[in-house]
């Protein structure tokens, strides 16, 4: 008897939108205790309206947006990650302003901490954020190649790791994930691997190796762990979702199977000309130029992942922030015996 494992697309959520309902280069998301989803939009330099937080839920109900581009309290320049504490406070890292902003779930500014530097409590490009079950906040201080740990108020507790390529070192890390067995998983973007640490900062192991084959990863941005210890990786450079078992052996991959979200259907139903032209189109095809160039393929084929930046498990659903396609793809895992 063999058990096969695969992941299946459940649905797609969101739509590209510079403002209002939708996202513009979303980078990350987090859930509050009421199951609302807070999607962090990066926006971009030439249209900063996308720099905001969009609030929605799994039924694709839209609950508004807050925050904006800028340097004032409650504003961001290059927001990169979002986490919500046990007490429902929102934390956003800004890798340009080198600070962490704390807000309420209604978008009211509470406080911020951090500044540029290499000292304790200082940052050079804060990226991934995650809370453990004791409400400690772990921050990927990516250009300093380390993880810094804070309490909920932003008081420094400890730090670990340093910049480098050896085991336990980090090079331009991006996302960070906490697993209930008191383990942290850091997406070591520059070293093309996931590194596992204890919450005390002791190196445990690394998973993945650089490459473009199925068992490889290239510049991972994020990872998530399921209840069986399987490791899901947003293989940002290969534009894939990869799954490894708890021993670190490759299980399966997915290139992306996006469908029309409810918001996308709304758009097409009110823009009939585009809808009709789209229905007549062949949106999936093969081109010679796709060989060894998944970026180019993703630019052409809409359903594929294009620069996935974040993975989150929530109530059995795996949510993948599909950044350059401005949407969230939702998957379920399926075991077949």
């Amino acid at each position, binding site marked *: 008897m063999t058990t096969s494992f695969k992941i299946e697309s459940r649905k797609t959520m969101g739509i*590209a939108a510079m403002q209002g309902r939708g996202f513009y*280069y979303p980078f990350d998301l987090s859930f509050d205790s009421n199951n609302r989803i807070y999607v962090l939009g990066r926006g*971009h*330099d030439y249209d900063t309206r996308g720099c905001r937080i969009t609030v929605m839920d799994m039924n694709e109900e839209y609950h508004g947006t807050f925050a904006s581009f800028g340097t004032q309290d409650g504003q961001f320049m*290059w927001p990169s990650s979002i986490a919500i504490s046990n007490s429902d406070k929102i934390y956003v890292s800004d890798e340009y302003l080198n600070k962490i902003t704390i807000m309420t779930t209604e978008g009211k500014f509470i406080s911020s901490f951090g500044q540029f530097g290499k000292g304790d409590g200082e940052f050079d490009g804060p990226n991934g954020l995650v809370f453990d079950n004791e409400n400690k906040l772990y921050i990927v201080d990516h250009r300093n190649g380390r993880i810094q740990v804070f309490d909920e108020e932003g008081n420094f507790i400890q730090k670990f790791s340093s910049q480098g390529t050896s085991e336990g070192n980090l090079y331009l890390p991006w996302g960070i994930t906490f697993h209930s067995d008191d383990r942290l998983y850091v997406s070591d973007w520059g070293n093309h691997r996931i590194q596992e640490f204890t919450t005390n900062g002791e190196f445990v192991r690394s998973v993945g190796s650089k490459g473009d084959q199925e068992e490889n990863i290239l510049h991972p941005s994020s990872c998530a762990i399921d209840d069986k210890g399987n490791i899901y990786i947003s293989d940002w450079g290969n534009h894939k979702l990869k799954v490894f078992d708890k021993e670190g052996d490759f299980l399966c991959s997915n290139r992306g199977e996006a469908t029309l979200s409810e918001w996308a259907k709304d758009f097409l139903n009110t823009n009939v000309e585009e809808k009709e032209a*789209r229905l007549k189109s062949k949106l999936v095809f093969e*081109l010679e130029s796709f060989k060894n160039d998944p970026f180019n393929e993703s630019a052409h084929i809409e359903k594929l992942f294009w620069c996935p930046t974040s993975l989150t498990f929530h109530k059995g659903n795996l949510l993948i922030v599909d950044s350059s*396609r401005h*949407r969230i793809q939702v998957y379920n895992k399926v075991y077949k015996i």
Partner: protein
Amino acid sequence: MSSNEILLMAHLMRRVGFGSTKDELNKYVKKGYDNQVDEILDLEPNYEVSTHMINRYQPDYESPMGSSANGATWLYRMVWSDFPFKDKISLFWHGIFATGYAKLANGYVLADQIKMFSNYGLGNYQDLLLQLSKDPAMIIWLDNCESHKGAINENYGRELLELFSMGTGNYTEKDIKEVARAFTGWTIANKDYMTAKSQRDSVWPYGRLAMHFEYKEDDHDGDEKTFLGETGKFNGEDIIEIICKQKATAKFISRHIYSFFVEDEPPVPEWPYKKPNNPEAIEALSEVYFDKGYNIKEMLRFLFKSKFFKSEKVWNKRVKSPIELVAGTLRITKEFHRPDKEQSLTNSHTQFMGQHAMNPPSVEGWHWGTEWLDSGTVVERVNFSSSKLGNVNNLGIRKIIDNIKSNISNQFTPEFLIEIVLEELGAIIVSKTTKETLNDFVKSKIDSEKDLTDDNLSEFLQLVGAMPEYQRT
């Protein structure tokens, strides 16, 4: 003053790229001029900042939604490349096959076109025209997707002959129609959806989509055509083959190459009425065009090693285009050694100076030469170069200042300081008047080595950035 070898190498590097520093020039001179030309033509560039690195921090630079990010991506490739020649070649073709965002509303297909110029721009001209005719950006820009069997749109056929190959006066109106007929069926896949998105500037539901060429046999006019005296059931490939063997094409493309790499020619619309600056050079380049099978790289190899290119008469005679000025300055200042938000703002300066990459004013592209200069753009150009060169916090400027201080040793004289500064900035040659102005400044501020402060040298570098010679290449 720099040796003639250095000055010649500086001229070459300004024309094939965006200028070189003193250290680079010394290294290239040791290789020898002809070897350096061959390396430039034959080597693939390396980029200090990878595509992945750019995309991580500035996602729109590589998957552009809007009109400016693709230009910014390209500008920073020019800055981060060890040999930006291929990007210079792309810039050359972009000026001729000018295609713009205004009609396409899709940055990705424009970025794809620039990559195509980089891949095919040094090869056979016939191949390049073929790729151009299949390029989705061009197909939309000049409406070839709206040209059908029995209902032709002449736009692409006309510009292919007038602006992309032969120039006016070398074909008839009937020839234009026959070209349009031959290119019927050359369109883009999912044309209705792609053009609907472009026309509505739609990013919905999930952003822009890249496009690709599609040939529709059932929409192609396969009947007999007569073009430039030849008759047959021509398709687009046949038309391009006939175009490429015309003397007019050889001269037209030779004049473009001469104008971009040697000295400014008048704008293209004036070519039928004005002789080339150097008819012998155009003739010689045309011969190479035929002798080397329409190969652009071999035409350039001949040009860079020619007497007319090496002649001091053409040194510093071209006005830098805004992109050349900005890219060249940023290569000196080295301020963006990693992706930074300020890049986008800095890229915008090319637009303020009159050259918005991938958004030319019309199908004719930009008018080069002194037409870059008017009272507004001159102020913008001078302010930009002065402020950048005068910022001692920029890595490249810091190094230049340190070099100046160490090289001046105990030999300070105003003349020696001026010489060292001009060498450091890429062996710039200045007129007697400019030298007097620089000399006056030095005498008013710097009496001896102890006055070689950051502030004084910053002010001096700002003055150099404002000189007319810095605005030329």
